[in-house]
């Protein structure tokens, strides 16, 4: 055993799915930072936006970002900031510093969620098997997000592009279940090619 601490996630042992219709893969650990600000706290909001160099999402489903970070709307006073895993401590410290006198909470939740990527022309068909979201109304384009559930797991779905690419984040303890569920639901589309 090396002395370098080893990562482990329950999904590393899962066999990924790659087909023309549907793909499912594990996303490496990302920096995930829960950012809490009061919705009417202009000062805190301005400070964060200045630090990030872009605006925070203003309403449900919005995703903002630049090359380095992205911010997903989770609630009126709650955001999820995504960064490269190695840079997350910098971002956390940076934010805490500029917000030091203000009412806020910056929390590392990088291991709270695990993220899997579902993509391909059949991905909405897979999702709607057990997700009650109206995909005509929500997640209709790239850089949009929505929280809902898939079967019996609460999820955060992040549509990365206008193509059908969805990053689905779920609490670590539900990841094994959700992966199995998505893989099972993808089944009919993998084989229908043949």
């Amino acid at each position: 055993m090396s002395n370098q601490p080893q990562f482990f996630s329950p999904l590393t042992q899962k066999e990924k799915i790659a087909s023309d219709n549907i793909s499912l893969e594990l996303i490496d650990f990302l920096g995930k930072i829960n950012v809490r600000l009061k919705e009417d706290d202009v000062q805190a909001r301005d400070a964060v936006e200045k630090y990030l160099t872009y605006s925070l999402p203003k309403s449900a489903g919005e995703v903002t970002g630049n090359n380095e970070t992205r911010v997903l709307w989770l609630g009126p006073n709650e955001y999820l900031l995504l960064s490269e895993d190695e840079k997350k401590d910098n971002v956390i410290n940076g934010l805490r510093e500029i917000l030091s006198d203000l009412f806020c909470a910056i929390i590392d939740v990088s291991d709270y969620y695990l993220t899997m990527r579902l993509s391909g022309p059949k991905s909405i068909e897979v999702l709607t098997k057990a997700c009650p979201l109206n995909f005509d109304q929500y997640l209709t384009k790239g850089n949009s997000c929505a929280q809902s559930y898939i079967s019996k797991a609460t999820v955060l779905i992040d549509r990365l592009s206008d193509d059908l690419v969805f990053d689905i984040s779920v609490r670590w303890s539900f990841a094994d279940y959700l992966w199995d569920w998505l893989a099972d639901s993808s089944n009919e589309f993998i084989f229908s090619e043949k």
Partner: protein
Amino acid sequence: MFIINCPYCGERDQTEFTCHGEAHIARPDNPSEISDEEWGRYLFFRENPKGTHFERWTHDHGCRRWFNVMRDTVTDQIIKTYKMGEAKPEISNE
């Protein structure tokens, strides 16, 4: 099965939400000064109207916010949803 218009997230399926009973029951400011009966009223007594009812709901599988719902218990029609802290809407006498 309702479609509930979450004041933050928009229209969503009822299964994303949980109902937490009657709304606008404020916790007494001075519990130690009120009688057992008044305390009991806060703890146990709830309206059960045939008609307009005010309830608290949470969007558990969404933004996790609590909000209020004004609903007709006869038709199940949701008349209005509104954020916590907003005034209780008037009941119109149609």
